[in-house]
């Protein structure tokens, strides 16, 4: 996927860059239940960060706060320096989001779904057409342009959603459990595509998952458990700090739970 074709690259920072995403003492409650408790971390531009946590850890709440679906009641969230509460427009323009639940309109075609998203980002028709065709070709789905979304497989739908999230050329991509419910091949393809984006285009990624095998040695790992930040660092640091032998063990020690499950179809 080449999301940079024709884009205006404004900055290649020499000095410490503004973090792609920065959370400062963020808390969020649903009535009496605390979903996030004083969470702080930062992701530097060009990093692939894995937000690791079991179901109920607070990952989706965190995504809802970062994407401004919920207001940040306590603490501060900044996307490339833009406070999501004070400058939501500036922050959201830099964000591409793939939600855990499918968000394609099943009755519309792939092109119509993508065009709708492009319009919501103020991209004109000609430019939209050009970007859609180029991006779909890059994932070998150019021939599905005029097919209804409901005719796509789960993996194809997810890939279209990722293309959609990239259509407005964001600098930070958020993916919430993007591979849930997909077969092993689709998972591997999607993960490889996203890693390629980080490598080749320098895009920053926050990848939320509960699947430990999706973590790579070079990734930044952020561990959430019951709304609390348990660790934030590189894989090696995390293993060393917990005295574990593997990342899976480290995660289990940090959260006091059994090692996270491997995906279906894997021993």
């Amino acid at each position, binding site marked *: 996927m080449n999301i*940079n074709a024709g*884009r*205006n*690259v*404004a*900055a*290649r*920072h020499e000095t*410490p860059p503004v973090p792609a995403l920065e959370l400062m003492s963020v808390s969020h409650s649903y009535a009496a239940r605390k*979903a996030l408790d004083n969470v702080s971390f930062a992701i*530097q531009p*060009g990093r692939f960060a894995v937000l690791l946590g079991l*179901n*109920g*850890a607070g*990952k*989706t*709440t965190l*995504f*809802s706060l970062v*994407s*401004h*679906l*919920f*207001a940040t009641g306590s603490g501060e969230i900044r996307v*490339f320096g833009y406070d999501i509460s004070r400058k939501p*427009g500036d922050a*959201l323009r*830099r964000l591409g989001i793939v*939600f*855990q*639940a*499918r*968000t394609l*309109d099943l*009755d*519309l075609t792939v092109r*119509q779904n993508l*065009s*709708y*998203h492009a*319009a*919501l*980002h*103020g991209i*004109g*028709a000609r430019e939209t057409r050009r970007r859609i065709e180029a991006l779909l070709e890059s994932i070998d789905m150019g021939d599905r342009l005029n097919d209804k979304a409901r005719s796509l497989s789960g993996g194809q739908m997810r890939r279209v959603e990722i293309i959609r999230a990239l259509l407005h*050329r964001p*600098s930070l991509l958020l993916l*919430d*459990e993007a591979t849930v419910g997909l077969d092993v091949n689709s998972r591997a393809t999607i993960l490889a595509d996203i890693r390629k984006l980080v*490598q080749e*285009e*320098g*895009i920053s990624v926050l990848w939320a998952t509960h699947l430990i095998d999706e973590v790579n040695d070079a990734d930044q790992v952020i561990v959430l458990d019951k709304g609390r930040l348990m*660790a*934030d*660092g*590189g894989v090696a*640091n995390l293993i060393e700090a917990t005295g574990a032998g593997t990342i899976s063990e480290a995660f289990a020690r940090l959260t006091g739970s059994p090692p996270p499950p491997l995906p279906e179809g894997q021993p």
Partner: protein
Amino acid sequence: MTDAAHPIPHAITEHKRFGFTHYMICLKGILVREGLRYLNQRERFISSLVRPLLWLFIFAAGFRQVLGVSIIPPYQTYVLYEVYITPGLCGMILLFSGMQSSLSMVYDREMGNMRTLLVSPFPRWFLLVSKLLAGVAVSLIQVYVFLAIAWFWDVKAPFIGYLMILPALFLAGLMLGALGMFLSSMIKQLENFAGIMNFVIFPMYFASSALYPLWRVQEASPLLYKICLLNPFTYAVELVRFAFYGQIEWTSLAVVAAFTLIFLGGAIIAYDPSRGLIIRKQDTGGNS
């Protein structure tokens, strides 16, 4: 634990501020999407027409003799009951369409499609107004198709009336669409929508001047008459009724405009993440 700086170079896209053209692109995108959804739901189009046509062909024909209408403004002569209820039926289309939009917003929220809209970088109020305009545009088409069929049923208004009702229908559609939008923010699940039918649509429709003139209501029940006067739908119907004859009913215009602002303001506040009702409903659609 902290991590060392990562060596991978990165690119940050420079963004220009959104101008008028961008806003229009966004509005057009929302209009097109609502239009496509409407075209994809042919049964919705048919049912939106069948409902008022049944009232016109069956109810009005049956009640023509029972519910005589005296000469009241804007009419200058006795009119058939079919003619009297036509503005009310136009209002009925707008009312059902407004609630249908609300239903579709609840459905979109449940299915997750709503998030696509809400994470757009355009201001939330603009997105909601665009969605509202799209819903009104669809309902206006329904009204004019209904009026075209009614014309063959010999329910005719002066030609100027068909032009004059356009702004009246637009404003009434905005008010009812905004009400639907506001209500959608308070409904968590699609199943709860049946309550809207029982507690909003039917009372609004029947406790208004859509089916019978207010003087007749007053004769029958002074209390119901007062309720009708408090019902904004009454004023929407009267605004359309007078517009059919090239007249502006100023009180109705003022009331409809005021309620449009109130309902729309309520909807914008309800969908505001920092103040709205959505946040209180824990509507993440995810695990937690």
